[in-house]
C-alpha cells in the first residue's frame, strides 16, 4: 500500500516541527457539529490525548451543523494559521475531498477519523467498521429474539457513509435469520424526534413489532419513547455507545448498542498526529473492532467521559489493523 509513502512525505515536516517548536504543537481537530453527542466524545478523546502528551488542541466545528461550505471555509482559515497537524472528521466524505487536498497542498499532516474520506492523503485513518458494527449489533438482537419475529430498521441520514454501511450490516444479518421478517426500513435522519415519530407511525400499520434496529442511539432512544407511549414492548438496539444508551441499557430499556467509541477514535487520531510530529512510529490504519455493549458488559462505559483515559500506544498497536 501507499501508506508508507504518505508517512515518508509527512515525516520531514514532522521533524522540522518537533525540532523547532516542540513546546507548542497545535492540533486542529475538525468535527461535524456541536449537537451530536458522538462528536463530543471524539473531541473529549482528542483533548485527553493532547493533554497527556503535552500538546494543544483547537476545535473547529461548523456553526451550522454538518455544513459543507463552512467546513471548507474553516479549512482555508486554519491553513493560514498553520497548525502542526490536523485531525479531521469530514462532514461529507465525498464533498470534502477538495478540502483535504488543500490541507495536503499546505503540507500539514492530517489524520482521518470516523468517516473515511473518499480522497486526499492522510497519515492514518482511525475509525470503526460500520458494516461489522451493524452486522454484530443486529446479530445480537436477532439472537436475543430467538431468531424469529418482526423487525423494523430506522435509517440515518441518506447517503451518509455511516448509514450506508450500518444498514448494509443490518440487512446482511437479517439474511442469516430466515424466520425474521423485515416490516419496514425508514429514514429518521439520526434524529431523536424523527425516530420517535416514525416509530409511532410504523406502530400504526404494524401491530406486532418485536425488534427495532436503529442506526444510531438517538433514534433508538426515540423509538423506545414511542414504544413506552404506546405501552408496547420490543427489543431495541442502537449504535454509537453513547452515555444515554448505556443508561438505557442499565434501565433495561435498550437491549444493546454497538460501540462506535468516539472517545477512542479521538484519542488514537490525536495520538497518531502528535507521534508523527515527534517522528515516532505510528500506525496507518486503526479500525476498532465491533463491540456490542449490553447488560452484561456495560460497566466500563458507565463512567463520565472526562474520567476516561486514552490507551497506551502499545495497546493501540495491538488493536490496529495496519502498522508501518
Amino acid at each position, binding site marked *: 500500500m501507499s501508506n508508507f509513502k504518505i508517512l515518508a512525505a509527512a515525516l520531514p515536516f514532522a521533524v522540522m516541527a518537533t525540532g523547532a517548536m516542540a513546546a507548542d504543537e497545535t492540533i486542529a481537530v475538525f468535527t461535524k457539529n456541536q449537537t451530536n453527542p458522538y462528536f463530543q466524545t471524539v473531541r473529549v478523546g482528542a483533548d485527553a490525548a493532547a493533554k497527556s502528551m503535552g500538546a494543544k488542541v483547537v476545535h473547529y466545528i461548523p456553526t451550522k451543523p454538518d455544513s459543507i461550505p463552512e467546513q471548507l471555509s474553516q479549512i482555508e482559515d486554519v491553513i493560514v494559521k498553520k497548525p502542526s497537524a490536523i485531525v479531521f472528521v469530514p462532514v461529507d466524505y465525498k464533498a470534502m475531498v477538495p478540502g483535504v487536498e488543500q490541507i495536503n497542498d499546505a503540507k500539514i499532516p492530517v489524520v482521518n477519523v470516523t468517516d473515511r474520506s473518499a480522497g486526499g492523503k492522510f497519515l492514518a485513518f482511525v475509525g470503526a467498521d460500520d458494516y461489522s458494527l451493524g452486522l454484530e449489533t443486529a446479530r445480537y438482537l436477532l439472537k436475543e429474539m430467538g431468531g424469529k419475529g418482526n423487525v423494523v430498521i430506522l435509517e440515518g441520514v441518506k447517503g451518509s457513509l455511516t448509514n450506508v454501511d450500518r444498514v448494509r450490516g443490518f440487512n446482511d444479518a437479517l439474511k442469516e435469520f430466515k424466520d425474521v421478517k423485515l416490516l419496514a426500513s425508514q429514514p429518521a435522519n439520526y434524529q431523536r424526534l424523527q425516530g420517535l415519530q416514525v416509530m409511532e407511525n410504523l406502530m400504526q400499520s404494524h401491530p406486532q413489532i418485536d425488534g427495532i434496529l436503529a442506526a444510531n442511539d438517538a433514534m433508538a*432512544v426515540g423509538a423506545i419513547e414511542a414504544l413506552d407511549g404506546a405501552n408496547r414492548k420490543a427489543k431495541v438496539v442502537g449504535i454509537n455507545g453513547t452515555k444515554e444508551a448505556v443508561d438505557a441499557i442499565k434501565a433495561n430499556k435498550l437491549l444493546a448498542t454497538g460501540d462506535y467509541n468516539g472517545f477512542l477514535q479521538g484519542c488514537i487520531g490525536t495520538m497518531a498526529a502528535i507521534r508523527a510530529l515527534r517522528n515516532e512510529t505510528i500506525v496507518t490504519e486503526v479500525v476498532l473492532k465491533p463491540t456490542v455493549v449490553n447488560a452484561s458488559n456495560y460497566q466500563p462505559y458507565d463512567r463520565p467521559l472526562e474520567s476516561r483515559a486514552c490507551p497506551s500506544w502499545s495497546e493501540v498497536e495491538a488493536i490496529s489493523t495496519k502498522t508501518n
Partner: protein
Amino acid sequence: MSIASNASAGAPRIHLSQDMQQIIYRLLAAGLLCLALSLATDAFLTSNNILNVLRQASLLFFLASGLTLVILTGGLDLSVGANIGLSACLAATVIKATGSPILGTLTGLATGCVIGICNGLMVAKLRIPSFIATYGMLWVLHGITYYYMAGETIHGFPPGFRQIGSGHFLGIPIPVYLMVGFLVAGTVFAQRTVWGQQIYAIGANPVAARLTGIPIDRRLILVYAFSGAMAGVASIVFLARLNSAEGDIGEALTLPAIAAVLIGGASLFGGVGSVFGTFIGALILTLVLNGMNLLSVNANWQPLVTGVIVIFAVWLDMYGRRKA
C-alpha cells in the same frame, strides 16, 4: 378545486364571516385528506392512529399557536425553534439539579418568555424589523445553547414529569389534552379578550390602531412574550416526550410552524387568522406526514408536498377574499 367553486357559490345569503368560511374550507380539506388516507390504508382510521396524529400535531401546534399571534400583528418570529432548544436545555438542567419537575417547567416557561420579551423589545422599542430581529436572536440563542451544552445531551427525567409528554389519561395522550387546553385558551385570548381584539386591530391597520389609543408597544411585547412562552411550553412537552434535551431540539420546527400558521389562513400582512385555523393547519401538515409514513412514501417528497400545500392554501385564501 371543488372548494374554490363552493366559495363562489355559497357566499350570499347565510352570512358567514369570511374567517368562518375560510375555516370551514380548511376543515373540509382536512376531512378530504382523512377520507383519502382511510381509503388508501386500513391503518389510518384506527383510534390509535388518530390519537397518534393528534399527539404529533400537538408539538407543532404549541409552537404555531404562539406564532399565530405574532403573525396576526403583521410580524414574524424566526427564533421559536432556537428558543425551544435553549428553554429545554435550561429546564433539563434545573430538573436534574433540583429533582423538581415543577421548578424545571417554570424555568422552561420563564426562559421562553424572557426570550420573547427580548424579541418584543427589539421590535417595539428599537424598531428593528421583526424578521431580522428574531433572526439575529436565533443565532444568539444557538450560540448560547451550544456553548452551554458543549455537545452533550441531558437525559433521564422523573417518570412523573415524563407523563406530560408520553402519559395517557383515559386513553388519550396528555399532550393532546394540553393542545386542546391551549387551543381553547388561545382562542379565548384572541377572540374573547380585549387584548386579543386589540392585537387583531394592530395587525389590520397599525396606524389606525395607534390613533385609536391602543398601546401598540405593550401589545407587541405581549405577543412576542406569548410566542416565546409557547416555545417554552413546547420545550417542556418535548423534554418530557423525548426524555432528553439537546441543543438543536427544535431547529427543524420553525419553518413547519410558520407553514402551519399560513396553511391555517393567517396573513403575513397581519389582522387575519385564528388560533383554530392554525390548529387545522398543524393537523393538515401532520396528516400529510403521517399518510406518507403509512403509505411508505419516500420521505424525500415531503418538503415538496409541504411547499405546494402552503402556496395552494394561501392562494385559495386570496382568491376567496378577492371574490368577496
